[in-house]
């Protein structure tokens, strides 16, 4: 049977992806260029008995989704630049208390109010280090509208699997562009539901590492009753400052990612087999980079594209292996050099790494990339 198709904006695809994943709670606050996500959720959630709430600010929105998530809901919020900055403290709360949730950040120019309607990719490092303290991070940067849909579903799966916040990074361009997408039928894409505890209620501990690195999270209102805090805590969820317990818990939280990189990391490769020049690009700009690869190939330059889909964790093993065979790596991004720092770090600069940065609110064009490659070769 032919799939249902729709012409959807990236932001809309993101919202429909969330619904496909089983999202039942959205708490938001309007901000350009993310608002369409909230608008779709306000239309669709009540139809399925879910909740849409517009809170008084982004901090409240973040708090509301964490409260909802603790009752078992798959919870979601959408924002951009200034709103993302406001959410940071509670993203840390979600990390330490290990509460699943999904946040889409439709990136716009900054800092501060910046360029509300201009595209940007300048929150890459914020997505990794935005909240204070050591903490795990998962951030996904899809490119096409189809991929925004499917990666949003995966973002919910990862959040529920690893009990943590997951960020989706779009930008003003792929958030607003419209593309024809095939709408997956139920069952086409994997949907992961939260693991439930099986122990007797009196034995339940919300951070019981005896259950593995990712202990099951019970729902408020169920037969399990427990305590949640933003303080460093022991397995039973109550605060502790015992050095060995604090250390073990912090390390376990990072291990959730480190031990499962191969299950979380995702990237796409285009014409890399014999590539001497590797373009590394993500999100919207990967589309320019892909067409730059074709141009360069026509001109006899062996170029290829490495497109990380998870920016965090960064697919570092694959990147490092590829760097061994390359003459140069070129990293176009709509910021003044963020993901390039990670690429330099993981490849230890075995070959020259050059960046193309753009922050004037215009996308990086294929011609710009071609010119840069020719310049450095």
């Amino acid at each position, binding site marked *: 049977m032919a799939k249902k198709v729709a012409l959807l904006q990236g932001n809309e695809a993101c919202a429909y992806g969330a619904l496909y994943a089983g999202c*039942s*709670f959205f*708490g938001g606050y309007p901000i350009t260029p993310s608002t369409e996500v909230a608008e779709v959720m306000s*239309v669709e959630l*009540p*139809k399925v*008995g879910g*909740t849409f*709430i517009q*809170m*008084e*600010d982004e*901090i*409240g*929105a973040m*708090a*509301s*989704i*964490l*409260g*909802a*998530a*603790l*009752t*078992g*809901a798959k*919870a979601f919020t959408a924002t951009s630049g200034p709103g993302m900055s406001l959410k940071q*403290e*509670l993203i840390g*709360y979600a990390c330490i208390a290990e509460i699943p949730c999904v946040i889409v950040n439709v990136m716009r120019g900054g800092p501060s109010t910046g360029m509300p309607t201009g595209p940007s990719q300048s929150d890459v490092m914020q997505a990794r280090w935005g909240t204070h303290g050591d903490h795990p991070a998962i951030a996904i940067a899809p490119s096409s509208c189809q991929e925004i849909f499917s990666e949003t579903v995966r973002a919910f799966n990862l959040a529920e699997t690893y009990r943590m916040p997951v960020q989706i990074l779009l930008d003003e361009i792929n958030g607003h562009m419209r593309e024809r997408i095939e709408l997956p039928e139920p069952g086409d894409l994997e949907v992961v539901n939260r693991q439930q505890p099986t122990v007797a209620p009196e034995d339940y501990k919300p951070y019981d590492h005896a259950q593995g690195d990712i202990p099951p999270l019970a729902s*408020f*209102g*169920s*037969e*399990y*009753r*427990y*305590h*949640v*805090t*933003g*303080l460093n805590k022991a397995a039973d969820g*109550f*605060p502790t400052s015992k050095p060995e317990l604090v250390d073990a818990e912090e390390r376990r939280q990072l291990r959730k990612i480190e031990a499962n990189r191969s299950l979380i990391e995702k990237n796409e490769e285009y014409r890399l087999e014999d590539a001497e020049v590797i373009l590394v690009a993500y999100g919207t700009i990967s589309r320019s980079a892909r067409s730059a690869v074709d141009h360069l190939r026509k001109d006899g330059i062996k170029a290829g594209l490495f497109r990380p889909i998870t920016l965090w964790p960064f697919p570092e093993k694959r990147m490092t292996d590829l760097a061994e065979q390359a003459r140069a790596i070129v990293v176009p991004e709509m910021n003044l050099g963020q993901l390039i720092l990670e690429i330099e770090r993981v490849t230890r600069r075995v070959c020259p790494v050059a960046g193309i940065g753009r922050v004037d609110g215009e996308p990086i064009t294929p011609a710009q990339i071609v010119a840069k490659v020719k310049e450095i070769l």
Partner: protein
Amino acid sequence: MAFDYEQYLRPGKLPHIWCPGCGHGIVMKGLLRAIDRCGLQKNNTAIVSGTGCASRLPGYVDFNTLHTAHGRAVAFATGIKMARPEMDVLVVGGDGDGIAIGGNHFIHACRRNIDMTYVLMNNYIYGMTGGQFSPCTPTGDRTSTTPYGNPDPIFDVAKLAIGAGATFVARTTAFHATQIDKLITAGLRHKGMAVIEVLDDCPTTFGRRNKFRSVVEMMKRLKDIAVPVQTAGQMSPEQLQGKILTGILHQEHKPEYCDQYQQVIARAQTAAKS
């Protein structure tokens, strides 16, 4: 018969962090008596707080408890209540937590008239951080950051809640221990946003800087300034100078937020069918 507090306390979590003479413990006792009186079920009850000495309360009591970031308790609680309207949701916390950093969430929860009960322990100081002034510290008083006397005017928490739209607003003090549980009981039974402000004391960081020689003296002040709202009508403005009104200050019935949202769901589903 003496009330059995232990049935609601988590085993092994005492002693609490509160200083001797701190008013927060008295409020906790009143809260537990009210919960008992209303027959709330442990599994179906969530108690949410922000950060501060007062906000440590949830850790001691045996319910679904959530100790969140400074100021954000009501917003977390809103998420819980909206996602699971059948749960009984309570918020507890201090004056700094609820009225300074959390003020925006506080007024909007009042405006929505969401069905929860907020017990605000107003010791008019930031106790946990060592006694800096809060929006409830009386003008002129000394705190660690108002060494020359506080230049700020105060927020009247009850008036703020009424103005913002809360449909049940009450006030008492830690001295009036039996009134605490009566007012919280009434708040729990009220459908809509119920705010119960309990004036209490921080002898450790406020008392000593403001020449209170003992906890008893601070308690005596709470006793002296409280005027039951029923008797205030017979008093002159001069007599009411420096006093605070206690009791149920405001109660009205307005549509509750979760109910309103159920209607949104009904309208959306009807529209989807047609």
